[in-house]
C-alpha cells in the first residue's frame, strides 16, 4: 500500500504543479480537474468517503465547470493570460518557508483519535447514524447553517456583477445549443436520473456517505446541463420564485433552530424528533443548494434575454 500512497501523492503534486504553473490556462484547468479526482481518491484511501464525494462533486466537478466556463468567457472577452516564465524568488522563498514550517509541524504531531470516540459515544442521541452527518447537522449545526449562508452570499455577490446592472436578467451568457444535438439528447436523459441520484444522496446521508451538499451538486449539474443544452432557457438571476428557493433551505434551518429554543436551546434537536427535523432541513437545503449552485455556475447575467 505504501507504494500506492507514494505514487498517488506524487501524481497529486505533479497535477497540482501543472495546474498552478503549467503553460496554457485551459490545460491548467483540465489538470486541476484531474487533480481534484486524484484528491478524491486520496480521501477514499484515508477512509473518508463523505469527503471524497464532496471533493469529487464540488471540489473537482463543480469548481472545474466554473473554471472551464470562465476560460471560455475570458477568451471571448479577448483577455488572454499574461505570460510569466520567470520565477518570483521572494514569493517562492516565502511560500517555501510556510511549506517547510508545515512539513515540520506535520511531522512533529503525534496521531491521536481526536474527537472520534466522543462522537461515537453520543451518536445515538443525534438522530443520524453517519458520524460525519451528525457533526455537520447536529453537533456543529451552527457552522453548517452559516456555511449554507456563505454559499448564498457568494451568489448574491454575483448580482452586482451583472452587465449594465441588470441583476434580474437571465443568468449567464447566451447559449446557442442545437435542440437536437448530442448535448441536447444527453440533457433530456440526464435530469430524471440526476434527480434520483440527488435525492438518494440526501436520503442516504443519514446512514452512509452523502448529504445535502453532495446531492444538491448533482441536481445543480443536471440543471446547468439542461440550460447549456438549450432545453430550457436560463432562469432569471433573481426571479421571484428562484429567490424563494434560494432562501428556503437556510430559512427553514434557521427557523427550526430557533424553534429548538422551545426544547431548551438554539439548534437543539431532541433525540426523538432529531431524525425528522434533520431530514426535513436536508431536503429543503438540497433544493436551495441546487438552485444556488446552478445559478452560480451559469454566472451573472451577460445580456441574454431578460425575463
Amino acid at each position, binding site marked *: 500500500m505504501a507504494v500506492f500512497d507514494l505514487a498517488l501523492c506524487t501524481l497529486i503534486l505533479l497535477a497540482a504543479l501543472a*495546474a498552478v504553473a503549467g503553460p496554457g490556462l485551459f490545460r491548467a484547468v483540465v489538470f486541476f480537474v484531474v487533480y481534484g479526482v486524484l*484528491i478524491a481518491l486520496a480521501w477514499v484511501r484515508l477512509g473518508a468517503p463523505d469527503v471524497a464525494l464532496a471533493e469529487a462533486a464540488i471540489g473537482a466537478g463543480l*469548481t472545474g465547470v466554473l473554471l472551464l*466556463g470562465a476560460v471560455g468567457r475570458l477568451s471571448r472577452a479577448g483577455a488572454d493570460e499574461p505570460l510569466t516564465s520567470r520565477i518570483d524568488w521572494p514569493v517562492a522563498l516565502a511560500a517555501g518557508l510556510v511549506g517547510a514550517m*508545515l512539513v515540520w509541524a506535520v511531522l512533529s504531531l503525534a496521531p491521536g483519535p481526536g474527537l472520534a470516540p466522543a462522537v461515537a459515544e453520543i451518536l445515538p442521541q443525534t438522530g443520524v447514524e453517519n458520524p460525519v452527518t451528525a457533526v455537520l447537522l447536529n453537533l456543529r449545526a451552527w457552522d453548517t447553517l452559516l456555511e449554507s449562508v456563505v454559499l448564498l452570499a457568494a451568489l448574491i455577490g454575483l448580482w452586482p456583477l451583472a452587465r449594465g446592472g441588470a441583476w434580474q436578467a437571465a443568468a449567464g451568457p447566451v447559449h446557442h445549443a442545437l435542440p437536437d444535438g448530442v448535448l441536447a439528447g444527453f440533457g433530456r436523459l440526464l435530469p430524471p436520473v440526476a434527480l434520483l441520484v440527488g435525492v438518494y444522496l440526501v436520503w442516504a446521508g443519514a446512514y452512509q456517505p452523502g448529504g445535502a451538499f453532495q446531492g444538491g451538486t448533482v441536481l445543480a449539474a443536471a440543471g446547468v446541463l439542461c440550460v447549456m443544452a438549450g432545453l430550457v432557457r436560463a432562469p432569471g438571476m433573481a426571479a421571484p420564485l428562484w429567490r424563494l428557493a434560494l432562501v428556503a433551505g437556510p430559512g427553514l434551518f434557521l427557523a427550526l433552530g430557533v424553534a429548538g429554543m422551545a426544547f431548551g436551546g438554539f439548534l437543539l434537536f431532541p433525540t426523538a424528533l432529531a431524525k425528522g427535523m434533520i431530514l426535513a432541513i436536508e431536503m429543503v437545503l438540497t433544493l436551495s443548494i441546487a438552485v444556488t449552485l446552478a445559478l452560480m455556475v451559469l*454566472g451573472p447575467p451577460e445580456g441574454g434575454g431578460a425575463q
Partner: protein
Amino acid sequence: MTVYAVTGALLVALGLYGLIAARGLLRRVVAFNVVGSGVFLMFGALGWYEGHTDPVPQALIITGIVVALSASALAVGLVVAHARVSGGQVLEDDAP
C-alpha cells in the same frame, strides 16, 4: 498516512506561490483551490488514526470545500466581469 499530510503541506506551499506570484487572475483562483485542498488534505491525514479518520475534521473539511467553492464562484464572477470591463485578466498595479 503521514505522506498525505506532507503532500498537503507541499500543496499549500505550491498553491501559495501561485496565489501570490501568478499574474493571471484565473490562475490565481486555481492556485487558491490548490492551497485549500492542501490544507484539507493535511487536516484529514492528521486525523487518521487506526484505519479511520476523525469525523470532526471530515465534517469541517466538507464545510471548507463548500466555502472554497463559494469563494471561487465569486472570484470567477469578478474575474470575468473585470475582463469584460478592462479587456485583460491582470490587475494593474496601483502606484503604492
